[in-house]
């Protein structure tokens, strides 16, 4: 029996696993194909960022990363499902369908780029554009058993990305193999005058240098599910076999990372989301015959989901007079301190190694029982590199009861190509398995 067409696989991923919010009607099987998380603007598609407030919004332009992939001959085949505005770690806060894990449809794909993770897993050769703020590329990569690259903050233009946190968002790639990612990463990287934060980067290295010494912070090994601990520790000898040394270190400042991240992310997000008020694009309330405060309040209260409201409230609070110094300004200082902590480690080692997520892909019924705080704490391993804006890659490093476990490697700013060298070497030494797909 011949391999299923890409088109058939896309349909399968959509029907069975809700990976996409919208797909194309057909494609050229000969050219490379990519998808975009639904918070990336693209001509010919809606961009709803997992939210009801953006229902019907059709952007009049392509986000720069999409524009560049198209210019390189790629076909945009669909928009992938996500948590509303990126708020979540399981893609359950989606107004347009919750994606189901390719390894077990009763379990989460992770979030917020859950649909991207599913698409990358189910469709060989597919490149999924994802976006990470606190770990939304690594998490889905880990839970869906694929490779996920989160570049340095400012390496890839964010023009056309519907904002969550402007000092934290990064556009990155998920795919079955690091080789695919390496092939296309140079296309989306590079300065874009429409996004000034992308204009501070040094040129992308032509070829990376394989990291030979990894630091493993002991703080990362606490609070892990035994299954994850076992799979991760099973990966260490394989690394050593590749000539990569792993040494335990201590990074005590890591304990400040999670609160500082949530303060900055929600502070920025609460201002980014102020524009959704029914005035123009997206959800347009026809009841304009009200005082503007009532009109705005009505549209926002009806349109935003539960997690979005919670983060808006939290972020608004952290910026308010009387609290701003203690939370917002303090968190800015903490970020700089953590950058210093990583730099200290990088004096002795090439990269930092940890598991990606502290547990296996959770069941939806277990997620429903989690408190908001518990969900935030689940990101404690992906948040630190995201807060400091350093590039990181998540690769599958083991399977437990048929479910994938990921490990994450963090390098210093701008060293994506070194990470890709390691990831390419890794997939030579460790065989990935993917669920059998019969569309």
């Amino acid at each position: 029996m011949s391999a299923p067409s890409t088109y058939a696989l896309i349909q399968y991923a959509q029907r069975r696993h809700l990976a996409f919010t919208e797909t194309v009607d057909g494609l050229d099987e000969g050219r490379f194909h990519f998808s975009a998380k639904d918070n990336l603007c693209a001509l010919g598609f809606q961009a709803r960022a997992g939210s009801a407030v953006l229902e019907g919004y059709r952007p009049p332009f392509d986000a720069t990363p999409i524009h560049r992939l198209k210019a390189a001959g790629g076909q945009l085949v669909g928009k992938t499902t996500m948590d509303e505005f990126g708020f979540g770690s399981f893609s359950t806060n989606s107004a347009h369908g919750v994606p189901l894990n390719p390894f077990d449809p009763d379990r989460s794909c992770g979030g917020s780029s859950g649909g991207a993770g599913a698409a990358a897993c189910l469709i060989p050769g597919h490149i999924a554009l994802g976006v990470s703020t606190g770990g939304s590329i690594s998490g889905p990569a880990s839970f869906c058993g694929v490779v996920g690259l989160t570049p340095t903050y400012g390496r890839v233009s964010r023009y056309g990305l519907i904002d969550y946190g402007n000092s934290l968002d990064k556009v990155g790639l998920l795919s079955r193999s690091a080789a695919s990612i390496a092939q296309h990463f140079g296309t989306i990287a590079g300065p874009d005058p429409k996004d000034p934060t992308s204009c501070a980067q040094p040129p992308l290295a032509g070829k990376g240098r394989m990291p030979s010494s990894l630091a493993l912070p002991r703080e990362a090994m606490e609070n892990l599910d035994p299954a994850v601990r076992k799979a991760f520790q099973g990966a260490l000898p394989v690394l050593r076999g590749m000539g990569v040394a792993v040494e335990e270190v201590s990074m005590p400042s890591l304990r400040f990372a999670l609160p500082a991240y949530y303060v900055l992310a929600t502070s920025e997000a609460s201002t980014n989301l102020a524009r959704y008020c029914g005035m123009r694009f997206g959800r347009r309330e026809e009841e304009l015959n009200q005082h503007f405060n009532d009109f705005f309040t009505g549209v926002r209260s009806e349109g935003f989901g539960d997690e979005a409201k919670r983060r808006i409230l939290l972020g608004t609070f952290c910026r308010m007079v009387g609290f701003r110094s203690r939370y917002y300004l303090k968190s800015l200082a903490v970020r700089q301190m953590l950058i210093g902590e990583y730099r200290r480690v990088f004096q002795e080692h090439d990269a930092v190694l940890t598991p990606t997520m502290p547990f296996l892909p959770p069941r939806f019924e277990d997620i429903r029982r989690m408190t908001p705080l518990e969900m935030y704490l689940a990101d404690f391993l992906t948040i630190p590199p995201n807060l400091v804006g350093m590039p990181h890659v998540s690769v599958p490093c083991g399977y437990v009861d048929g479910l994938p476990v990921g490990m994450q490697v963090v390098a210093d700013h701008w060293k994506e190509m070194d990470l890709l060298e390691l990831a390419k070497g890794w997939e030579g030494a460790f065989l990935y398995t993917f669920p059998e797909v019969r569309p």
Partner: protein
Amino acid sequence: MDRETIAKVAKVARLALTDEEMERYAQDLDAILNSFAVLDEAPASDTYALNPVPVVDVLREDEPAQEIDPQLLRGQMGTYEDYVRGPRLS
């Protein structure tokens, strides 16, 4: 995080909350902010940076240009005699 504070925050953010929601969000934020208390142990700083990597002196030359046809944008917004209709002011 008392009821009065949550009500004020919601008003600033233009969110109308039911009594149940006020109660629930107040509890959520309370738990979350308590876990953030560890921030008080971190040292403060006089200077700070807005971005994790330095972004300095990125400027655009003063040349007018419009990539997208404004007529397309007007059409998208729904205008009346070229103005965008908004809500009431009083």
